[in-house]
């Protein structure tokens, strides 16, 4: 959808061919001597040192995992250790030219990357910067521990190196003095002050997060580049392909304006150690033969793909120098196939049954640490004794760091015995931040000039009677629009993207009017890549921005399962509160379009710790909740229902034009009553009200209707108060009844209001079926009459009522027995 781009049938139907250019494979052929043009002698020796540090660090973990000790320090470490012994040259080479503003996102096998990147950043920082970082980070707790072995006479850089090794190891060992206070662990350790961003235990998980971080750099004009470091095995993952594709979107060049025009500053680097866990990528589980080949399929630049020799640190440095230049020229993205090999197994328990001893030995013949050391000696840049001295110093350093990290007093675990609820504090950040940056907001027109705003001005914002909503009424879709539009004029970092949002205005016209207001880089169409949309949102906000992303239909949530459940939900707590996740994911719950377009899956994100979940049903609540979501710093899944985008406000006197918030987590009594409480989530509110009318008129039963508005967090007090009064509660939503969030609420009410209940809490949800055609939906989604039947059968017999549906105990048991 970009009217600017004319699709010419003549062009499209023309015959011809696609020409590819050749993809370089290991073409670097310089010596250490040659590199003296670019690197100093010290640099060249430091490359050796950094590789040796990583080697010793990983060998140390291997020893601990396999023998229970390292150089006489015993330790039992049951956690993961995906070691990269053998891969040192590739990580050191990559990091060597990078500084703290260049961000890397890695995998389960990223100890080496943390150390290499950290060592490189330390080398480039001033003593003052380093001291500041160490003193500030976790209020100096890590530094205090390190001070036990490094006194005041230690040079700051040496201190920082010890700090880096210790912070990483303490994190791996799950100590409170680790970089993430032990909440991350081996596969998730990172250290943002050195540009080391979250490493991900989900294979390929980092690719789209890194993409989001690159979007952040580009959109907010920040210094530096971003690297996604994943393995060759991750090329089997959909989200990685989504990320490659989305990072290569044509609009960066074709449609984004001015300084925003041009490619993303990102390198998709694949540490190609030839194996997944045991599956060989080239030849067995993939068809690419050369991993670098896939660049050719992504965009005309073939992603500047190249295979480089990850066993030669200089080759990697060289490639990074060139590729970085490309990125600075806005010619990204780049794909690198960095050939490497791990000597150790996937993890220490791996018996390497999938490869031969000969193969491992052959690669050991090429061991980069040895061969690079020999090169240094050959060209007289270091003597064998120098190198030995370096290695010995490293052993001593690693030894002292291990002793420190296993010391229960100096490196304690998080005090869960003393404070069993400690982790609660990290689940949400609960900040209020009006804007993530202070610069002016880039917009195309003023708010007043916006045609949608003008249209809304002609609408009635005041309370309407049921069923009176029309074109002249301020609708729920207007309310969401208004909150979002306003925020675009406040927070310069705010971006919104998703499928078919620009020009179209989103499938349900919520975003109509944003296209006119916002430049491409703040509001754009994403490819149909739900996983990449969500994960890039995660990367965007954890790099410092604020974003609203969307899934056109709730049913597509499965396509973004990992991204919502493991990425969006987890990084605040896994970073021990260092990272914030001001990300709003709009999710639209459908109807009318059958089984794969009509599902209310609120229960799925609500089950996952770390997400806030809301589902407003009125214009007032929608605007207020969106404002709250856009003010907070926590990830919010913002459910909307397509049934009610056009409802007007029926409860408040009016929907204010100005800013106001509805607090997340507070249910709202929409109708007062004394005999029965009905708690509704989402669009069933209106059917619940209808049921309340019927109960009143036909049976003289006065029902109180509460709109949950939020699922997580949720303040039960108003509900309990209501139940204390009525003694009865029915819960309803459009979700299939089995394991819906209503069940969770019903159980909680049973537990907390047990002595107030005159009948069990009864859930009226959709049937546990597929959704039938729209014309038959009344047999699937809860209807007011179902609620009345349930009240009569389970809660309070209604005089003269004869139920139309089977609601008996037996029916229920039989259905459950059959899985229905």
């Amino acid at each position, binding site marked *: 959808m970009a009217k600017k781009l004319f699709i010419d049938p003549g062009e499209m139907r023309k015959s011809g061919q696609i020409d590819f250019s050749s993809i370089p494979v290991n073409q670097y052929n310089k010596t250490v001597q040659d590199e003296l043009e670019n690197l100093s002698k010290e640099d060249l020796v430091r490359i050796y040192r950094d590789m040796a540090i990583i080697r010793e660090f990983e060998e140390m973990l291997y020893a601990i995992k396999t023998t229970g000790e390292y150089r006489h320090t015993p330790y039992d470490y049951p956690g993961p250790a995906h070691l990269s012994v053998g891969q040192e040259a590739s990580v050191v080479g990559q990091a060597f030219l990078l500084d703290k503003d260049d961000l890397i996102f890695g995998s389960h096998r990223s100890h080496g990357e943390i150390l290499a990147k950290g060592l490189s950043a330390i080398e480039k920082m001033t003593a003052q910067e380093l001291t500041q970082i160490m003193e500030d980070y976790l209020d100096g707790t890590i530094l205090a521990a390190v001070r036990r072995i490094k006194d005041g006479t230690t040079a700051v850089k040496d201190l920082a190196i010890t700090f880096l090794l210790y912070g990483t190891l303490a994190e791996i060992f799950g100590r409170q003095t680790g970089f993430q206070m032990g909440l991350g662990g081996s596969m998730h350790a990172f250290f943002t002050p050195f540009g080391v961003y979250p490493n991900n235990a989900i294979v390929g998980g980092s690719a789209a997060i890194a993409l989001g971080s690159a979007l952040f750099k580009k959109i907010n004009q920040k210094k530096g580049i971003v690297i996604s470091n994943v393995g060759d095995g991750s090329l089997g993952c959909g989200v990685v392909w989504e990320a490659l594709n989305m990072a290569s979107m044509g609009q960066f060049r074709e449609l984004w304006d001015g300084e925003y025009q041009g490619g993303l500053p990102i390198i998709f680097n694949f540490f190609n150690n030839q194996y997944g866990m045991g599956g060989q990528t080239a030849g067995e589980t993939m068809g690419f033969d050369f991993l670098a080949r896939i660049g050719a399929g992504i965009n005309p630049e073939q992603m500047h793909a190249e295979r480089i020799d990850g066993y030669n640190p200089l080759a990697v440095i060289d490639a990074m120098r060139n590729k970085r230049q490309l990125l600075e020229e806005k010619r990204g993205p780049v794909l690198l196939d960095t050939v490497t090999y791990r000597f150790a197994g996937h993890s220490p328990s791996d018996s390497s049954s999938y490869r031969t001893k000969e193969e491992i030995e052959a690669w050991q013949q090429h061991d980069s640490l040895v061969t690079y050391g020999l090169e240094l000696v050959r060209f007289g840049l270091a003597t064998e004794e120098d190198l030995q001295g370096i290695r010995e110093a490293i052993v001593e350093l690693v030894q002292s760091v291990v002793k420190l990290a296993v010391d229960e007093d100096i490196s304690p675990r998080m005090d869960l015995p003393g404070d069993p609820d400690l982790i609660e504090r990290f689940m949400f950040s609960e900040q209020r931040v009006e804007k993530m940056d202070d610069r002016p907001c880039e917009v195309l027109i003023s708010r007043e000039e916006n045609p949608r705003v003008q249209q809304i001005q002609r609408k009635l914002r005041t309370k309407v009677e049921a069923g009176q909503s029309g074109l002249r009424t301020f609708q729920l879709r207007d309310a969401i629009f208004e909150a979002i539009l306003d925020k675009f004029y406040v927070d310069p970092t705010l971006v919104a993207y998703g499928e078919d949002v620009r020009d179209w205005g989103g499938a349900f016209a919520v975003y109509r009017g944003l296209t006119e207001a916002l430049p491409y880089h703040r509001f754009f169409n994403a490819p149909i890549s739900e996983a990449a949309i969500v994960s890039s949102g995660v990367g965007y906000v954890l790099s410092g921005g604020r974003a609203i992303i969307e899934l056109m239909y709730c049913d597509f949530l499965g396509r973004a399962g990992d991204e919502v459940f493991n990425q969006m939900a987890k990084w605040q707590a896994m970073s021990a509160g260092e990272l914030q996740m001001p990300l709003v994911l709009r999710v639209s719950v459908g109807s009318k379009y059958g089984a794969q377009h009509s599902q209310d899956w609120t229960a799925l994100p609500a089950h996952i710790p770390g997400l806030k979940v809301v589902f407003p049903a009125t214009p007032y609540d929608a605007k207020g909740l969106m404002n709250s979501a856009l003010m907070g710093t926590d990830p919010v899944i913002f459910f909307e229902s397509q049934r009610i985008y056009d409802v007007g406000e029926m409860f408040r006197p009016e929907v204010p034009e100005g800013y106001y918030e509805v607090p997340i987590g507070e249910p709202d009594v929409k109708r007062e009553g004394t005999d029965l409480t009905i708690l509704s989530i989402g669009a069933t509110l209106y059917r619940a009200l209808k049921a309340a009318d019927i109960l009143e008129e036909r049976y003289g039963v006065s029902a109180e209707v509460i709109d949950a508005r939020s699922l997580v967090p949720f303040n039960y007090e108003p509900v309990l108060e209501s139940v204390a009064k009525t003694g009865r509660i029915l819960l309803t939503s459009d979700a299939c009844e089995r394991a819906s969030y209503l069940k969770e609420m019903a159980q909680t009410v049973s537990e907390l209001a047990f002595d*107030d*209940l*005159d*009948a069990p809490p009864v859930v009226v949800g959709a049937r546990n079926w597929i959704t039938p055609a729209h014309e038959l939906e009344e047999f699937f989604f809860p209807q007011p009459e179902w609620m009345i039947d349930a009240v009569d059968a389970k809660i309070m017999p209604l005089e003269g009522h004869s139920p139309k549906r089977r609601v008996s105990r037996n029916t229920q048991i039989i259905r459950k027995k059959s899985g229905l």
Partner: protein
Amino acid sequence: MATPIIMPKQGQTVESCILTVWHKQVGEQVFEGDLLFSYETDKAVFDEESTAEGVLLEILFEEGDEVPVLTTIGLIGEEGEQPPEADAQAFHEADQAEDTHPSEKDAVPKPIADPVEPVLRDGDRVKASPRARRLAAEIGVDYRQASPSGAEGRVVSQDVLALKPQVAPEIVEEQDELHYEEMELSRARKLIGDRMRASFSEVPRVTLNTSFDASELLDLRKKLKADRSEQGLSGVTLNDMVIYAVSRTILNHPELNAHLLGEKTRLFRDVHLGIAVDTERGLMVPTFFDANRKSLRDTSVEIKSMIQQCHDGNINPDYLQGATFTVTNLGPLGIESFSPIINLPQTGILGVNSIAWKLKEQDGEYIPYPAMGLSLTFDHRAVDGAQGARFLKELTGRLETFSLLLCV
């Protein structure tokens, strides 16, 4: 071999009793016939004598414990004998399995009539909502007494609320020293309270007061009192006569010889009269079954014996239920009229009052006569005011011509 001490089963419907007092201590010598322990059901208190001789070796339940009937609660054996290793409960189980354990107290005759369905069987499972249970505990009523209106036959809070007294008793809180002594209410007392409260609050009651010329009753009473024969006629009281007259009259007014059970009333073919008895342990209401089939003499003798058993605390609990109408007599205490409380689900209760001298006009002259008061309280849901009045009218007519009634 030690002899188990068994918690007796008092009547068909009692499933557990509260062990109230051990009269012997472990190690103490026990002779046959010695008072061994006391226990109570929610209707009565009982004493149990030992049927074995020896030493009380062991007690298995403490005072205050609720004990299922036919459970072994202690052991009597020879001096120095060790209590058996095996769980004493085994005795109980063996007993149950063979069902050979004889009822300890067979002194009370079995009820003659088929007992009507009891109001409430102890231990019956009553479905009640948590809210109803909580509310019942708060306001001190027994939710099991409520008639269920909730889904799936559940007693819900409004049903319990219906048992609640309209006027809450004022509670005066003592601040300083204790000028009083507190005693735990006995189970029987609590039950009486619960029932009374339920009846009082749930039932729209009407009380009609009337009196009749008791001259003829008093005359007859005088004659009977003088009877020296062994027929037991000398013990016939005014109350017995009222009861006799009620039993002969009430069948003409079936709505008063009835139970009101939710949607329906159960009209009884025979008359089972509840007789209110004031005992040390509180109010007890034994049932005089088949009153309409008994002679005046039998009426007198049976009632006397039941009253005695109530005072002694050894009445069979089966006799404490199943009444179809109740007569309560406060006459001896000088009460002139009162408003007795209906024993639900019965529909009425007759209060018998004292005799006061009244004047009646006869041929322009005022003649004094002994007037005995009657107070009929009935459940207005089941009985209309006029129906109640008609019953009273027929009753007083019969009492005034009591000798004719005896000839019927």
